[in-house]
């Protein structure tokens, strides 16, 4: 009787310890995973989709189509476009605390890493000398239109931030950058 008990104990112990080993990079076993609803039947946004040539479920929309609720940015990504935006483009937002604080938040996330919290071109990447050449806002003639244009398309070393930010978020950042510049110019 005692021997049987010992054997049972050892077997249980071995089984439970064996779960500690094995390939850690593989997902764990799931109970009845093939019948129950673990895997989606529909296609998930970033999942693979073998039906398309590039194998992605996320397909780009057709060129020239406009989503409901969105206004396309029509100034082209050229030097002329930059000048045009600088001179004619105006912010649709009113200047208020709410927009500014939101703008500050977004600026801290997306811009400050290079441009610095004050907009003086002393972001953390610059300080660590990962790359150089980030200008101070006070050294450049920039308007709200030109700031928006640069966020949209990028300029020189800077890439486009159009996919990270929505239209009104860009304008909120613009508002905050203008304030930073005003502070730097003082």
């Amino acid at each position: 009787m005692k021997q049987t008990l010992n054997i049972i104990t050892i077997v249980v112990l071995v089984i439970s310890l064996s779960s500690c080993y094995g390939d850690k990079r593989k997902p764990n076993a799931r109970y009845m995973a093939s019948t129950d609803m673990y895997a989606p039947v529909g296609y998930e946004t970033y999942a693979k989709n073998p039906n398309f040539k590039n194998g992605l479920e996320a397909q780009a929309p057709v060129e020239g189509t406009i989503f409901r609720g969105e206004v396309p940015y029509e100034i082209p990504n050229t030097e002329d476009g930059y000048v045009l935006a600088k001179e004619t483009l105006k912010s649709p937002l009113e200047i208020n605390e709410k927009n500014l604080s939101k703008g500050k938040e977004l600026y801290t996330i997306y811009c400050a890493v290079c441009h610095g919290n004050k907009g003086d071109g002393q972001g953390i990447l610059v300080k660590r000398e990962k790359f150089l050449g980030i200008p101070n806002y006070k050294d450049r003639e920039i308007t709200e239109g030109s700031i928006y244009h640069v966020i949209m398309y990028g300029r020189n070393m800077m890439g486009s931030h159009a996919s990270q930010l929505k239209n009104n978020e860009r304008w909120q950042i613009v508002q905050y950058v203008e304030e930073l510049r005003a502070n730097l110019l003082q």
Partner: protein
Amino acid sequence: MMSHYEAPIREPLIIGNKSYHDITVDVAAPVEGKANKKWWIAFTIALVAFLYGIGAILYTIGTGIGVWGLNNRINWAWDITNFVWWVGIGHAGTLISAVLLLFRQKWRMGINRSAEAMTIFAVFQAGLFPIIHMGRVWNAFYVLPIPNALGSLWVNFNSPLLWDVFAISTYLSVSLVFWYTGLLPDFAMLRDRAVRPFQKKIYSLLSFGWSGRLKDWQRFEEVSLVLAGLATPLVLSVHTIVSMDFATSVIPGWHSTIFPPYFVAGAIFSGFAMVQTLLLIMRKVSNLEAYITKVHIENMNKVILLTGGIVSVAYITEFFIGWYSGSSYEDYTYLSVGAATGPYWWAFWALITCNFIFPQTLWFKKLRTNFVWSFFISIVINIGMWFERFDIIVIDLSRGHLPSSWTMFSPTFVDVAIFIGTIGFFFVLFLLYARTFPVIAQAELKSILKSSGENYKKLRGDNHE
């Protein structure tokens, strides 16, 4: 002998010139002997039916519940009908061993062992249905309130289906323990008689070293009485809970406060019928005619008559209330004019004929004490009680509140196969039991030999005159 008074009007419960040893020999004979051809034939048939049922169950689980005849409206039919039928059958065993013990009925001793065995085997069958009728059997363990990794997600204790889980599992375990404690002295008897070492080993394991000392017997009696006292409310509550699967719903015909006692009465009714069926065969094939006598059969018929009467009153009440309530929805319930003349008229009349009309013949002593007629009636009642559950479930679901969802049910072969399979499984177990277990509680029987044995009664009668 002279100090004992027993009314001379009482009929003997043990027939023939039996001694203690005779009882032992008679009870041990089927266990110690070899199975005959008829047993093997019966066992093979039962086994085939059982395997067929297993196949149907596996097919259901592998393919889905859609292989049954259920539809969107009638989503319970043969599964729950059979479940309630089997649970009902199981009730007589506990009634015989517990309630009759509380009432000090000595005639129970000839039949209680087999009745209890029947209970346990019937509850096994019943227990299958709540599991296999699930869409996802493999998640059945979620019905248990076990602490888990889902934020300790719990069960809802408001559902009668959960109460069913507790009721059936408790019922099975208590019945099993009650039955088994009763078996100890009998296993000990078989152990002591066994000549083959293997048999000896088995029965000494089964009998837990029972040595029949005074203190053991004293405690044995006490435990039996306590368990009988516990099993009695259990037997009443289990089928009550089963009835609440229906009675707590809002479906016309189901929502009825009469269900709990009516279902229990029906359970005893059908259970006794099943005991009758089995014992009438058993007394013949196992040569137990001296212990399962005409008195036993008659007494069981009386209980059948009583519970059949209660059930009949319940039918009339349901029919009356259906009309008296003035609710138009009650016009189509399983006991209503709508049911009697509707598409399920045959099921309605099967119920009335089998449960309401035929059992009334038991009022006549001649028929009540007739073995053939008793056997016939017991079969009829089992059919009738199956139809009672079928009618309650299917007729009520087929004609609900919305006429646009009125529909019919027809079973597929899988429904039928599973039912046949459970019958096969039941008989597999029962046939095995009849060959390996002491089918009569000989220890108890020996306690009444001198008060109710035919020879002792005669002796007493002679002395008095």
